[in-house]
């Protein structure tokens, strides 16, 4: 199902639509088929206008069995199209899905939705009969039949998927041919059946001029890292340990060995981050990535990286927590872990991409900052961005700014080298082993300023702690001021960060269209925060902070600026629906007359 979703997305993007996706699948590799827990879904939205989310509701839903129907029907809008594989609705499947009777037979279904029952299994078997496959293999082709039907319904071209089938199954020509037959049969069924009455055409969206491709979040991170490595003229070392939903970054970067990429699948998360620090010591662009539980394991070494003051990137593709939590579901609940989850005073810069395509720019920016500050930089992505996709405007590589790295040159002189001397950004020199005359020892023990020698001096420890903190806080002087969608003062300011951008932006747009004074500030830099943020917050009656956690950014904002914030918080493994945000924001909007909010209901966690 995930594969088909990706195909529909690519095909729609190639048709010039703006697209946004939400893959939703179980954590188990082969979760029992037919059960509610085993349902694997892929939500895709394509539009002739610019869109920022995969949408709150479905216009069309394809279900292959009763479990898929009962778990997803709630999202289908009234009057929407429900396409069901009739052959998947039998006594065995009802039992698996734990339903008493055939849910398609409920009279309310026919009344509320446009139901189209298709015997897909039987039709697919017929369509592929000529290829002489076993029934088991033949039945696997039925997803392509369903795809063909959807392609007809929305006037999509079969070409990209035909190409894909040739690529993927080229070595098994009989399977490739059968899938193609199934796909074409699905299309033909749509054209000849009278069940639909109409098909839909979605015109190309009006996007900024340029060449586009479809891009997933983890892929964009991988490409951004490789770009950063090229722009800084450095080979990349990527040390990691497999974990959902970060592993796809590894799968992608390891394809780029001809770009000078070395990947290391370590024995555990700790080995992965430590090897990354070792590579950074040697002068290589070093990156590690994980998700919440893995970041917890890396915490001690990240503290060391911060003490050694070596540049590197740590990526956290967040998922539902705590502990193993919801591995395949999205959440933003590692913010405070990344801010504070190390022993001692150990601030690190934190960046957060807002969409799949933005992951590319964030990766490049993270490496630029890491080098500029000589410290590890954290990227907080999430499962929603990682697996979601959107059209990505391909940049002109010759116009991407270079990242200039200077290692101090040595010489024959044995004059003492000062590994902890500092430049205007408070960064120390990145002197690398192999350089004559610059031999020095790094370590996790507190260091004397300048010399880097072990020091237990009380005043020095205070000074070094202050310096390391200032190094991070001073980044605020060099990053852009926080930009705002809407007015820079008014009634309500919505502040969001990370993967909730699309929902928040759309909800704010809808509020503004409804005539409310609502503005939106979406944070890209979480630590340090942009230096105008406090002033910006004070310009509004109310500040609302929607997050897929129980109020972590809100806690930071309140603590730093002493401005109260209202939380809109949710941890259900799902992104925000635009409608729920719209309602939450609107409930706090002041009426023109008395200046009081429509509802003075605070979120429970508030």
């Amino acid at each position, binding site marked *: 199902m995930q594969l088909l979703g990706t195909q529909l997305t690519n095909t729609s993007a190639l048709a*010039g639509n703006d697209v946004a996706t939400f893959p939703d699948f179980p954590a188990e590799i082969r979760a029992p088929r037919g059960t509610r827990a085993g349902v694997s879904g892929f939500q895709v939205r394509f539009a002739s206008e610019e869109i920022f989310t995969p949408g709150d509701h479905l216009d069309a839903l394809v279900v292959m069995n009763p479990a898929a129907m009962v778990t997803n029907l709630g999202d289908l809008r009234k009057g929407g199209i429900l396409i069901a594989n009739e052959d998947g609705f039998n006594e065995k499947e009802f039992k698996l899905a734990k339903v008493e009777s055939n849910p398609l037979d409920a009279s309310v279904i026919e009344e509320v939705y446009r139901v189209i029952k298709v015997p897909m299994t039987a039709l697919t078997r017929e369509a592929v009969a000529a290829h002489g496959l076993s029934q088991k293999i033949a039945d696997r082709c039925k997803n392509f039949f369903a795809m063909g039907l959807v392609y007809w319904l929305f006037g999509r071209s079969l070409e990209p998927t035909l190409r894909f089938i040739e690529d993927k199954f080229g070595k098994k020509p009989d399977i490739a041919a059968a899938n193609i037959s199934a796909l074409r049969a699905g299309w033909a069924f749509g054209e000849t059946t009278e069940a639909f009455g109409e098909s839909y055409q979605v015109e190309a969206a009006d996007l900024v001029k340029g060449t586009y*491709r479809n891009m997933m979040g983890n892929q964009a991170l991988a*490409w951004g890292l490789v770009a950063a490595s090229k722009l800084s003229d450095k080979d990349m070392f990527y040390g990691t340990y497999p974990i959902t939903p970060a592993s796809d970054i590894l799968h992608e970067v390891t394809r*780029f060995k001809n*770009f000078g*990429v070395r990947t290391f699948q370590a024995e555990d998360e700790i*080995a992965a981050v430590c090897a990354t*620090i070792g590579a950074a010591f040697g002068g290589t662009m070093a990156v590690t990535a994980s998700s919440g539980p893995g970041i917890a394991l890396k915490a001690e070494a990240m503290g060391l990286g911060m003490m050694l003051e070596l540049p590197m990137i740590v990526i956290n593709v967040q998922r539902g927590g705590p502990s193993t939590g919801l591995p395949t579901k999205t959440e933003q609940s590692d913010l405070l872990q990344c801010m504070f989850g190390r022993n001692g005073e150990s601030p690190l810069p934190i960046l957060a991409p807002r969409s799949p395509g933005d992951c590319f720019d964030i990766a490049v920016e993270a490496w630029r900052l890491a080098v500029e500050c000589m410290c590890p930089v954290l990227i907080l992505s999430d499962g929603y961005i990682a697996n979601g996709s959107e059209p990505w405007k391909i940049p*002109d590589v010759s116009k991407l700014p270079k990242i200039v790295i200077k290692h101090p040159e040595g010489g024959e002189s044995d004059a003492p080298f000062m590994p902890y001397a500092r430049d205007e950004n408070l960064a120390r020199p990145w002197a690398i082993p192999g350089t004559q005359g610059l031999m020095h020892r790094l370590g996790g023990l507190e260091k004397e300023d300048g010399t880097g020698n072990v020091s237990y001096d009380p005043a020095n420890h205070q000074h070094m702690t202050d310096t390391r903190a200032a190094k991070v806080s001073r980044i605020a002087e060099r990053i852009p001021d926080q930009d705002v969608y809407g007015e820079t003062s008014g009634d309500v300011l919505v502040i969001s960060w990370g993967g909730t951008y699309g929902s928040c932006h759309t909800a704010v747009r809808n509020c503004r269209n409804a005539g409310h004074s609502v503005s939106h500030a979406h944070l890209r830099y979480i630590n340090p925060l942009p230096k105008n943020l406090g002033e910006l917050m004070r310009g509004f009656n109310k500040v609302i902070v929607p997050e897929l956690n129980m109020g972590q950014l809100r806690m930071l904002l309140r603590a730093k600026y002493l401005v109260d914030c209202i939380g809109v918080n949710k941890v259900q493994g799902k992104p925000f629906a635009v409608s729920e945000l719209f309602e939450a924001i609107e409930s706090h909007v002041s009426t023109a007359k008395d200046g009081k909010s429509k509802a003075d209901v605070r979120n429970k966690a508030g």
Partner: protein
Amino acid sequence: MNLPVLKAADFASDQDVRWCPGCGDYSILAQMKKVLPELGVPREKTVFISGIGCSSRFPYYMNTYGMHSIHGRAPTFATGLKSTRPDLMVWVITGDGDALSIGGNHFIHCLRRNLDINIVLFNNRIYGLTKGQYSPTSSEGQVTKSTPMGSIDHPLHPLSVALAAEATFVARSIDAHVKHLGETLKRAAEHKGTSLVEVYQNCNVFNDGAMAYAQERKQRAENVVELEHGKPLIFGTNNDKAVRLVGNHLEVVNVADVPADDLLIHDEKEMNPSIQMMLARMRYPEMPEPIGVLRAVQGIATYNDQINDQVTAAKAKKGEGDLQALFNSGDTWEVA
């Protein structure tokens, strides 16, 4: 080319050494400084990486590049460094707690990957820096601060672990046996692949004399056998004892009592580690404990060579990576 000739003193850093007076670490440090000039590797190409513990202060005392890292993880830092900078000579300095307890995982994985580095494991069978708790190599029944009724742990034997991980170079030496120690470190440095040298090191504060049977010159002759490739395992104050293989175990015999052909001849180059494992399991007081090189096999690819060879091969096959070509690959569309 006229290379500067380095002396041991050139490898001393300007930092005061802060081990307890009488600690076995001093001897290892001295031998290291003595051996390094003989290797012909410039100081700036030499890196010492350590974990946490008394032994792990070692890098601070060397005038080379160095990193004092976190507990148990030194081999992992070395992996990242050596994989990206194969031109450097990398040493890992670790202890029995560091390498075998908290770092046990990384220790075996480094060995099985055959990363071309040298690991020197200072084994004093006690936790020193945390002041006297038992370690994974402490003897069963040993009374320490954390085992007032005696340790109930069966000890771990680093050479056995290393052989089980199919390490390509496995050796043991003794802090007090300075000449042997220097020679063993040199052999380790010259080996291509991961070299493990276990060094019996006396902690004179928390576990004094635990290995006196091997460290004191008079006892050593009776309790230790020095391995030499291609030679029988002869030991004893009068060189009158040897080891032979009977069935599937080793036993001590009097040289005078058996034909010379019966004696076990040491073969460090044998790929099958079975007999080397038997040597590693010779333990005091039942058997003499072996020192020297148990295993030194060649021809097994190193991790650092392979990770870099793949990059070279990929470039040869696909050409140097081109970002713009990557971005424009596959399905794209124009918006006019």
